[in-house]
């Protein structure tokens, strides 16, 4: 199944879902509307045999609208194809539906994206911070978080 067939299959099934797509250095990237991500992922898993979610992460583009993206790195063990989906997330509504019900691998990755960008994956079974302490208030990989950190943001343990 080539990239063209995948792209045609998705656009035929979900005509309004694919915002844009491009092939760069031999990699297909599709930007998908946030509300349709679950249906598109289910379609890709069941019809295009993308049985493995290899990675999921956030991006901060630092733009006024659609500031964040969530990127999905899908891999098919049968066809050995790899595609990337991207979902724009506006700063005003940081909720993204979780894909843990489709690929259980998304669990840790979504927790990491939540920890680093504050993206709220609705329906996630265990959405906690994964690296930073639970009482940490900031999201370190956002572009407005300084490289040197924020003084006193991690309090010392009290007696």
């Amino acid at each position, binding site marked *: 199944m080539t990239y063209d067939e995948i792209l045609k299959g998705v656009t035929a099934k979900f005509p309004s879902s694919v915002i844009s797509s491009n092939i760069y*250095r031999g990699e297909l990237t599709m930007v998908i509307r946030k509300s349709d991500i679950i249906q598109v992922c289910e379609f890709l898993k069941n019809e295009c045999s993308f049985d493995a979610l290899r*990675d999921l*992460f956030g991006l901060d583009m630092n733009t006024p609208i659609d500031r964040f993206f969530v990127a999905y790195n899908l891999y098919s*063990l049968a066809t050995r194809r790899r595609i990337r989906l991207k979902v724009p997330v506006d700063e005003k509504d940081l909720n993204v539906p979780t894909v843990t019900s489709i690929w259980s691998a998304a669990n840790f990755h979504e927790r*990491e994206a939540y920890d680093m960008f504050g993206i709220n994956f609705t329906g996630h079974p265990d959405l906690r911070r994964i690296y*930073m302490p639970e009482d940490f208030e900031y999201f370190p990989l956002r572009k407005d978080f300084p490289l040197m950190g924020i003084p006193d943001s991690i309090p010392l343990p*009290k007696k």
Partner: protein
Amino acid sequence: MEQQSTYRSKILAALENQDTSVIFDDTLENAMVLNMGPQHPATHGVLRLLLRLDGETVIKAVPDLGYLHRGYEKIAENTTYHEFIPHTDRLDYLSPLSNNVAYTLAVEKLAGIEAPPRAQYIRVIVSEMARIASHLVAVGSMGLDVGAVTILLWTFREREKLLDILDILTGARFTSSYARIGGVMQDLTDECIAALRSFLDQFPAKLDECTGLLNKNRIFIDRCDGVGVISKEDAIAIGLTGPNLRGAGVANDVRRDEPYLVYDQLDFDVITVEGGDALARYHVRVREMKESVRIIYQALDKLPKGPILAYDKPKRVLPQKERIYTKMEELIHDFMLVNFGINPPVGEIYQPFEAPKGELGFYIYSNGSGYPWRMKIRSPSFVNIQSIPIVLKGAMISDIVAVIGSLDPVMGDADK
């Protein structure tokens, strides 16, 4: 005080969540919560596990990460592409050469550089050496975890010989920072090739000696056979890669499936073992080491002559040091590269790489400046740790160390 208590309750709530299929009719009424790690010799670093136990049976395990989190993805956004190479050594610190090569491959894909053939062969050789070194630690420490101390000493003896060769080649035993964007740092000398060949000639026999301690060892087999079982479907769904996935009988290897470097010109087998238990994962690692020996032999035989850095791309590749001091062009390029970076075109790429622990991938988003706008490191250990709650469900406490040893997570890799 308030904050402390909410923190504790969140992680305990995750543990006490009733999402478990293990039900006991005759509960011994001694359910307890046990904290294993982060300072525990069998957790391979600073992995912390919260365990909910019924007697000696694990009902639920919750891994807790982040004790070695250094924020490399944030650092990457604030360093040039060349500056980040030493940081990759510290990801999976048992196989730094794999990480160097994986990172430089990703940057080369982004910037459109191709390393010269000799550099590609040298990269294959060093990444297979890194695989042998890493698997030797994995096999040895797994033996140690289940009580066989001698195997650790013997595998470390072999690894020491390999590290001596890496010392000649890269100038450091660990933290090699050997790969460069567009090639490698220094050439594989005849002295190094001779040392490597003499190591490879004796290694398979020595490996058989090491594994002879375990392969028919009743205690080892009893501790590992049928322990930490993961099915094919679960292994794929949870995202396992590398030896752990191949130990569940799934033939998936980035070297074969999405060939990079010159792996498509080399002959090697993708090792799979059915079973999905700790013993299967052990056998995968042992047999992969022998495949790596085969690959290194082939690469040494085919090793072409030529440059080791892509000097035809002077605006992307660091010039030779001698020429910087004597030639104007090289001095300018060196100044621009060090101060402003390589400025790859706008775009995003993902480059997978078969590291010893599994699929190591670098996603880089470039906005055309000298710094990556976003770099995501897809580290294999992070995902492999995710399978611990599944494989530990219903296991005994003493199986935990065998399971962790067989999954072989490295916390530097998992915590980034």
